[in-house]
């Protein structure tokens, strides 16, 4: 797999990164070498190998369904950049 110029531009746009068009070729080379590394790893035969998501052989502990948290809104919102009427304010997420 390799990326062309327009794909690099699209990725930059989605990531909200402003890039210089003169640098696109070098970005494309760097990204492609990462993808080549992934290809190399993909080529390894892993048949019969269990995925190792957790290094320990432990299982999930369960919690009783009881309310243990009280309202801490004031303290929790003290670190937020903007709040109003109890809501966290963020840049508008839809047009």
């Amino acid at each position, binding site marked *: 797999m390799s990326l062309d110029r327009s794909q690099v531009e699209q990725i930059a746009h989605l990531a909200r990164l402003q890039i210089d068009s003169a640098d696109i070729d070098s970005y494309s080379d760097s990204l492609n070498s990462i993808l080549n590394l992934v290809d190399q790893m993909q080529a390894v035969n892993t048949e019969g190998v269990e995925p190792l998501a*957790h290094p320990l052989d432990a*299982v*999930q*502990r*369960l*919690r009783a*369904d009881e309310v243990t*948290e009280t309202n801490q809104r004031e303290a929790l919102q003290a670190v937020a950049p903007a709040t109003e*009427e109890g809501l966290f304010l963020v840049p508008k997420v839809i047009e």
Partner: protein
Amino acid sequence: MEWEVVIGLEIHVQLSTKTKIFSGASTAFGAEPNTQACAVDLALPGTLPVFNENALRMAVMFGLAVNAEIGKRSVFERKNYFYPDLPKGYQTTQLAEPIVGPGFVDIETDDGVQRRVRLHHAHLEEDAGKSLHEDFHGMSGIDLNRAGTPLVEIVSEPDMRSSKEAAAYARKIHAIVTTLGICDGNMAEGSMRCDCNVSIRPKGEEKLGTRTELKNINSFRFIERAIDTEVARQIDLIEDGGTVVQETRLYDPDKNETRSMRSKEEANDYRYFPCPDLLPVIIDDSYIEAIRETLPELPDARRERFISEYNLSEYDAGVLSAYSAQADYYEQVVKLSGDTKLSANWVMGELAKFLNQNDTDIKDSPVSAEQLGGLLVRIKDNTISGNIAKKVFELMWSKGGTADEIIEAEGLKQVTDTGAIEKIVDEVIANAEKQVEQYKAAEPDKRGKMIGFFMGQVMKATGGKANPGAVTGILKQKLDALCD
């Protein structure tokens, strides 16, 4: 060309746990914004999730109720998703190893189509918070009270072939989860939300067409309307030489249209991976069997019992068993009134009418099953007629009180005293010379219908309190005597 519609549903069911799936914050509906969003829900650094056993139990209950295999090992994964309504930057969900494996439910539409709908699987996940987009100086307001509320997402196979089947399937899932008591079933509050995957293909074709996904539909009626609208759009598009694009669309109930929701701004890549903060969930047979022991009677079984035990029609049994609170209410009324058909008529008729008009859930009905049962007893023993009973019911609804109290206070007791009725009948006949002449002139087999006029007069004179059976008998006797 004849087209076949293919539909699969993804239904999100909010579990009625007291607390969130991974934190001890309350899930109660309607709290002030962010008063039920703790450090875990806000994804503050250093916090860790701990899994709620009750959410696990409820998911297993659901799996057992839909004949599914239960995952003795299930794994939580991270679905990366970058919106402020889940501040972690991912949704904790299940993918490769869900808690509930393949199962099925049997459905029947109003027009009698029966079908077995297979479930692909059902998994546990967390709900997101709410974004409010108005009135915050160009910013969005975020309420995270709902973030972390446990959901079971139920994914069907594309087995439904009409919008009616899709609605019947959703109703069946609703009946199951409310009967199990794992969800309050309140669709208006978002406790059950539905995404519909819709495609069409030429009849007889095996290959599936390109599907679109209709998001977040929150009523059974809208499921039907949204699918019908989308199917019409797809047919027009293809017959005009176009192609369906795989995309998410939003149904607008006001305009009755679907429109594309996602822009080209997005490239969804959820990059699922096992959540390192949560270990595999392991359960054994004894855990599952202990839950099986606690399962209540399920809607299908209850419907069959209503038919065999109460002699109800299939239709009545289906309606009454579709919602567990209604089925419980009905059974309570039957116990008191001793009349299964009369009870069914009142629960599905007058009571349902008042509940609908006032947008009230049967669980919050101002008229309790005890009150309604007491009212029906008074119809059965001829204290009041069915018509007067409707008046009593109305008063019961608006002012409360038992049937006996209302009948007494309003003086609605039926007149069964034959002497009193005869007197009124005599007066009515004496004051209706013209109608009496018409009655006499009529063919004997037409006279039955003509009694209606006199009946109305007697009821008017008695304020509806005369026993209708007794009045008919006396009227007939007296009028026919005049004809000889």
